[in-house]
């Protein structure tokens, strides 16, 4: 094996081991005594690993998994559909006399349009735009995430479509400004996704970090590493203002916290990998966070 000039790609080993377990994560041991947790990629070459003539491979059965595409689809379909149940006031949600009635407030129709558009856009992006790594997510985590997304959207849809819903205090001005901000943020978020997609698509193996393009929405890259998250938070803030609904604001806050954690991680990864990374950039909020 040592004299064989052919590089042995790791996928070959994985295929042979497929009979052992459906979805396994392979690591190798750096120290002889313990199993150091360094996961191996499919395109790693056996000869390039820092092991001697004998390599000890450890694998761990990760349990039932789903690919990223399925995960995103599952997480998006729920909110999309549950919100509509509340919008159409399906029986047994509100009291009987309100079943299948509609709200007298235009902002309620607008909110439904925005919410539905947001998740439709996500579904389309998941199917046509995003190129996911071949990572997966354990079934348990997906169930937990879906419970969170589906449950929260049901909770906020309940209030927005409620017969006793109170429209925003500042009326038309508040609603219209919020709507404009919402549309800008959705366009911005979409632009960033396209830009990130194009980075990978070039074919060259060299890794580059995302930079602003001619599209003005991407100029946020001058200031933050993850403008997609910035725009996402912006969209939800707009939606909170548009509906003036506390549960929406709460959902926005929790989403902001989670996305900040992700953004910070991505930001640190960029800085570690690229020596010439722009120092002006923050993770998610320009100049602040």
């Amino acid at each position: 094996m040592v004299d064989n000039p052919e590089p042995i790609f790791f996928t070959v080993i994985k295929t042979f081991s497929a009979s052992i377990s459906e979805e396994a994560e392979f690591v190798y041991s750096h120290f002889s005594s313990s199993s150091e947790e360094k996961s191996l990629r499919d395109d790693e070459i056996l000869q390039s690993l820092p092991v001697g003539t004998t390599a000890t491979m450890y694998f761990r059965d990760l349990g039932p998994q789903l690919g990223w595409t399925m995960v995103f689809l599952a997480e998006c379909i729920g909110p999309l559909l549950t919100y509509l149940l509340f919008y159409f006031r399906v029986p047994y949600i509100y009291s009987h006399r309100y079943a299948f009635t509609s709200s007298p407030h235009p902002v309620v129709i607008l909110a439904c349009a925005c919410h539905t558009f947001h998740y439709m856009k996500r579904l389309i992006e998941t199917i046509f735009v995003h190129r996911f790594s071949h990572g997966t997510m354990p079934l348990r985590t997906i169930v937990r995430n879906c419970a969170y997304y589906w449950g929260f959207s049901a909770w906020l849809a309940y209030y927005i479509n409620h017969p006793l819903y109170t429209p925003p205090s500042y009326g038309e001005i508040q609603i219209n400004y919020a709507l404009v901000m919402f549309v800008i943020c959705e366009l911005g978020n979409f632009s960033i996704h396209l830009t990130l997609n194009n980075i990978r698509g070039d074919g060259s193996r060299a890794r580059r970090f995302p930079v602003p393009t001619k599209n003005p929405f991407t100029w946020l890259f001058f200031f933050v590493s993850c403008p997609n998250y910035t725009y996402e938070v912006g969209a939800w803030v707009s939606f909170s203002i548009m509906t003036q609904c506390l549960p929406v604001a709460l959902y926005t806050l929790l989403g902001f916290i989670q996305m900040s954690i992700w953004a910070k991680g991505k930001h640190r990864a960029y800085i570690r990998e690229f020596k010439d990374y722009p120092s002006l950039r923050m993770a998610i909020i320009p100049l602040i966070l």
Partner: protein
Amino acid sequence: MLSKAAHGDVAAKKKKGPGALATAYLVIYNVVMTAGWLVIAVGLVRAYLARGSYHGLYYSIEKPLKFFQTGAILEVLSRVFLTWAVTHSVREVQSEDSVLLFVTAWTVTEIIRYSFYTFSLLNHLPYLIKWARYTFFIVLYPMGVTGELLTIYAALPYVQKTGLYSVTLPNKYNFSFDYYTFLILIMISYIPLFPQLYFHMIRQRKKVLGHAEDYSKVE
């Protein structure tokens, strides 16, 4: 049966100094948390010395850390909640037997647990204390939980009648909260939580008391 004097005592304690119970509990909690973190720190040092490196240290203390933190948080939350959000807020339940039930259970538990950690830190743990810690809970846990559940249950009609801590529609921020339903959900949450904690303690007991040797350090 509990005498009227006992009822009066408990009620008087609540009305005169609600801060006293909470303060005492916080003091005890702080001591316990310090002890707990010392245990984890000792574990880390031992693991480091054994491995000769920092790698994988987290994994060596992960389980006790997670359980200790989760258990501690749950217990703290449940006690603060019971003290302030139920017993203090709903005067009518303050003279209930159930309050005396869980306060007694907590007090005895805490005295034993406090002693257990103190002696462990001094490296001189009498077997009696260890035995008490891993045996008394068999009665004290169900006793405390029963007291807590009964107290919450007793508070329900008053909460519903007065709409305590509840927000109704319509309002400017389109939000509502029903404390009554919330309390019921809390009671339901005991069903999955309590057995888990209880059976974990039983397993711990088998492990700890099952051996003939006397351990002088905390696991």
